[in-house]
């Protein structure tokens, strides 16, 4: 049994999706941790994959905090150079159409082995593109690895801007980092100031379409990463496929990832499961309510036409 497999535990698959194991991890590279949101897992996997030739392109989102028009508005990119991965590090709390560049990655960039990081809904979109690729010529077999991120909901750009500028009192262009954790929305400024608002105050700005999604942990990913359940600076990682496990095993063996059992840390896996349950119950209720209004159920729109 590998060092990684020794620390892996299993959680409730009803809530987390099918998986081989869960653990807590962080990158051992300073430059990654400095740029990353939490433990730098997504960045580390992408850099390792590109350097080792496991991927020849990764899809991620980049943002320009100094954009004069729309600071912090992300756009999707296809990255082929491992040195450029860290430009995409860090969470962006607004929509970024990562899947929109999927065909471009294969067709224009000529990538044969694509990795993508995405929210649960985006991972689902790519899986469907693999199963029924009506408009996705030559894409299905080019998907090498899908990295999901744990996600409760997302915010439209204007919503995020309102939270940052109106509620936190910080100009978007002065923001150095945003974060959600410990029941709060956090804004760190370039000057070293820290502003927070309770997470409850952000609810009015959530994207409504997120409320029909019952997938918290990107259940169809190869591996999922997120801050929930792990201490500051660490990420909770859910491994689902053998392919992902093999890659993570190599990274641990090469000393690129530091791993721990999630049972040894606080707040632990229980919190991930609790929040997954909360998302599932809340949003299933929303789906039912929408049905009563005569609105279509997600995934069954065609049935009602």
């Amino acid at each position, binding site marked *: 049994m590998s060092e990684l497999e020794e620390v892996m535990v299993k959680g409730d698959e009803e809530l987390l999706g*099918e998986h081989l194991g869960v653990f807590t991890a962080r990158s051992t590279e300073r430059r990654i941790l400095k740029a990353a949101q939490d433990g730098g897992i997504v960045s580390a996997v992408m850099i390792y994959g590109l350097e080792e030739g496991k991927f020849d392109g990764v899809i991620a989102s980049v943002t320009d905090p100094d954009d004069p028009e729309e600071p912090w508005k992300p756009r*999707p990119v296809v990255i082929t150079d491992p040195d450029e991965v860290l430009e995409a590090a860090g969470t962006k709390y*607004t*929509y*970024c*159409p*990562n*899947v*929109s*560049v*999927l*065909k*471009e990655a294969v067709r224009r960039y000529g990538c044969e082995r694509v990795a993508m990081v*995405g*929210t649960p*809904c*985006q991972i*689902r*979109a790519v*899986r*469907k*593109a*693999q*199963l*029924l*690729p*009506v*408009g*996705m*010529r*030559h*894409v*299905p*077999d080019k*998907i090498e690895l899908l990295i999901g991120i744990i996600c409760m909901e*997302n915010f*439209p*750009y*204007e919503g995020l801007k309102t939270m940052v500028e109106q509620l936190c009192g910080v100009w978007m262009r002065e923001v150095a980092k945003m974060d959600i954790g410990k029941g709060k929305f956090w804004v760190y400024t370039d000057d070293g100031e820290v502003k927070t608002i309770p997470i409850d105050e952000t609810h009015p700005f959530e*994207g*409504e*379409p*997120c409320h*029909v*999604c019952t997938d918290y942990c990107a*259940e*169809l990913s190869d591996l999922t990463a997120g801050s929930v359940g792990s201490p500051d600076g660490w990420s909770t990682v859910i491994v*689902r*496929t053998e392919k992902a496990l093999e890659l993570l095993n190599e990274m641990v063996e090469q000393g690129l990832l530091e791993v721990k059992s999630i049972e040894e840390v606080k707040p632990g896996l229980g919190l991930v499961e609790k929040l997954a349950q909360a998302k599932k119950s809340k949003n299933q209720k929303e789906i039912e309510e*929408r049905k009563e209004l005569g*609105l*279509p159920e*997600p*995934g*069954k*729109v*065609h*049935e009602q*036409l």
Partner: protein
Amino acid sequence: MVRLAYVQLAGCCGCLVSLADTYERLLDILDEVELVYCQTLMDEREVPECDVVLVEGAVCLNHEECVEEARELEEKAETIVALGACASTGNFMRYSRGNEQSAPTHEAFVPLTEVVDVDYAVPGCPPAPEAIERFLTLLLEGKTELLEPFAKLAEGKTEYCGCDLMYHVVNKNMCMGCGTCAAACPTRAIEVVDGRPVVNEDRCIKCGACFTQCPRTIWPGDEAIKELVMGGEEE
């Protein structure tokens, strides 16, 4: 062995090219069927009785023979599949004004789904080779449960075009801005702006790719994905 016919109506042959674009896997498909009619590939003048007919292209209502050929398929074939957007949704044939020089008055082109009782429709211009392969594999294996969305699309209720994406996904508060529609669009008519698709209607050819590919319109089910995609079949 399943007797398969391939009929071409008013179209460009692109769907047949897409079918052939499955490369060596085309041979696997051909191993599973007996091809009994296909004008491009074999010398057979009449569509014989068959189990499955794949129909590419739109029906020209000005062309009696074409309408008849389409209608006769109901008698000749057990299962009728509208392959590609011209047969499924109408596609750009909806805008066709004047056929080739020999028949310049031909201008009324409709999808097969408007003329005959179609069992399954596979939109896309053309449908990706992998989509055709998947569809045929599921059909030949009799996994009809997964084919239900294609059966529903065959009812031809609408074009499943960029407008439908607006009316039935964005306007119904379900679009989460993943960008799948933009990637699926063969004419780059869709751009994601502020997390939602903006459709350039002048460029939309009504091929149905965006609506069909959207994960919020038709969801095939997690189990199918775990079995057929994540189970290693694609490796």
